[in-house]
């Protein structure tokens, strides 16, 4: 299904995905798209008071990379990676509850939009400093190494992150210590209004190879290409090969947030990005290869829409936080040690 080939990972083997696996990938991509469509509507009708970010057009990276993780692996997350979180087990209701500031979300209204971390053992603490999430992912990888557990940590971040000091420190340290870390860079061409050329000079995968990490660049709108690259990286990390870097080339087809009209982005780039829409492309691929019939795709869409309706209704039924809770939970309660 690839329509953008630059430096595919070398000798990628067949994905070995069953029809059920392919449907699973499509389901989560569709779920992200439909849930985000709904949240944008809620934002536009004034029901979301804070900022509204989406990962529109990035569903292939979100889902493809996370789907390569094993059941005990963890990820540091991004404000656009709803699909990844759903793959990792986050209930969709949390997404709506967090946007609406309801107590149904684990943050109980203390955080907005997709800033939900600490979900069981699989989704690491989320902060708004995306570069700062990379050392946290490296720390989880360090923890697995100390305990000699065959587990892997993944970090999702945008290309703007490559300009930050913490990203550099974390990747350098992870390379030196050969930590089981998979770095997934969502190169969507813009950091708010700053274009790639003003963020980083030179190809990202070439730069990252100089850190001493395995590095590749794939079409980030091709879920199978992302999955294959991530599967190789996860396998490399799990078998002691150290960290890997994957650039997923994509395009931010909406504003930085829904408050941003992206008027500074050349129209042609947005139109090209929309033409390469990862959700539609994968649906086409499934139909063309006979992996799913048109009727099955319609059925899956209806099912995903029902999940979105249910999640939204669950969140709306969840009460807003009581102001009496304001000062609760600043510290963790003491647990006996050792």
């Amino acid at each position, binding site marked *: 299904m690839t329509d953008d080939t630059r430096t595919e990972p070398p000798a990628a083997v067949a994905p070995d995905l069953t029809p059920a696996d392919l449907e699973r990938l499509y389901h989560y991509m569709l779920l992200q798209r439909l849930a985000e469509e709904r949240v944008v509507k809620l934002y536009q009708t004034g029901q979301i008071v804070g900022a509204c970010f989406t990962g529109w057009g990035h569903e292939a990276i979100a889902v493809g990379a996370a789907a390569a993780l094993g059941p005990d692996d*963890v990820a*540091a997350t991004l404000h656009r990676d709803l699909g990844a979180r759903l793959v990792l087990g986050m209930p969709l209701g949390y997404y709506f509850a967090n946007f609406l500031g309801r107590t149904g*979300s*684990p*943050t*109980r209204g*203390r*955080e907005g939009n997709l*800033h*939900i*971390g*600490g979900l069981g*053992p699989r989704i*690491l*603490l*989320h*902060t*708004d*400093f995306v570069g*700062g999430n*990379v*050392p*946290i*992912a*490296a*720390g*989880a*990888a*360090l*923890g*697995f*190494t*100390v*305990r*000699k557990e065959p587990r892997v*940590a993944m970090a999702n971040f945008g290309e703007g992150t490559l300009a930050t*000091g*913490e990203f550099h*420190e*974390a990747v*350098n*340290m992870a390379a*030196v*210590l050969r930590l089981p870390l998979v770095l997934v860079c969502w190169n969507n061409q813009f950091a708010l209004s700053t274009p790639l050329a003003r963020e980083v000079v030179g190809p990202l995968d070439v730069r990252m190879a100089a850190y001493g990490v395995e590095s590749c660049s794939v079409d980030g709108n091709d879920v199978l290409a992302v999955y294959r690259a991530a599967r190789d990286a996860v396998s490399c990390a799990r078998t002691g090969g150290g960290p890997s870097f994957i650039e997923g080339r994509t395009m931010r087809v909406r504003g930085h947030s829904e408050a941003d009209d992206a008027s500074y982005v050349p129209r042609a780039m947005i139109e090209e990005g929309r033409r390469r829409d990862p959700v539609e492309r994968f649906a086409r691929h499934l139909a063309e290869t006979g992996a799913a019939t048109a009727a099955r795709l319609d059925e899956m869409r209806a099912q995903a829409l029902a999940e979105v309706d249910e999640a939204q209704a669950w969140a709306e039924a969840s009460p807003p936080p009581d102001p009496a809770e304001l000062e609760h*939970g*600043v*510290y*963790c*309660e*003491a*647990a*006996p*040690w*050792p």
Partner: protein
Amino acid sequence: MTYLEAIADGLRHAMRADASVILFGEDVGVYGGAFKLSKGFLEEFGPSRVIDTPICEAAIVGTAVGAALVGLRPVVEMQFADFISNAFTQVVNAAATSAYRAGGCVPMVVRAPCGAGTHGGPFHSQSIEGYFFHTPGLKIVMPSTPADAKGLILGAIADPNPVLYLEHKALYRSQRGPVEDGLTIEPLGRATVRRAGRDLTLLTYGMMAHRSLEAAERAAAGGIETEVIDLRTLLPLDLDTIAESVARTSRALIVHEDRLRGGIGAEIAAHLGEHLFTSLDAPIARIGAPDTPVPYAPPLETAYLPSVDRIYDAITRLARW
């Protein structure tokens, strides 16, 4: 046992008791730490638990956060407390907000050798507690004696929250004292009375606890009995112990090495003014460093640090008010 040996003893006991306690930072392994505090740790616990890192304070603290989130109890060393400014966001934004934002508990200890008096100049002498005292979700401790150095490092490791453990470099080898064997955990959040007295309450911590005690003894020769309270945990403050003493003596003097402006003494003074105004017989007094970076040359550094003479003068002035 010296103050430095007591910290190492506590750390060693923690690492023997629980394999999830690990130590990492710059030069902590092969070299044994810039102050040789972790000498022998690499040999005893091995390279998977005593880890030399590159020079990267933000990544050191950030990886500690990540390791804590997956169930370890990391202890990381800032080679000098001054260097923690490079890791500020990881402490205040990642570690300290985690519990409140439902991100999970971060049982992490950041050890930071701090303080002036060792001719380290502006970047190897700082008191950093003021920068972090404003941060919800963080705990800050600073022992003044070997027994507390051990008890509080164990208390910091035992605590399920991120803890900034400030160890004063000038006390490392100058302070010796009895230290109990074993896992002697001192829970965080409790001040202690170092010297009982009826005439005024002196609130202090760290190196200034020793200068304050010396000044208090000198004042006692003139009949002034000073109650010296060692705060030990700076965040959260033990306001009950502070208030109980000040309500009894009616006079409060706060002595710290950190700068006065916006400092911990300012917060204590405000608290006493708000809650014990009618108990006070004199204005609250504070002694601290001036609003300058920490200077290098001995005449300047000596003038920068609150001296026993200055503390003694403040005690006598306050007692006679």
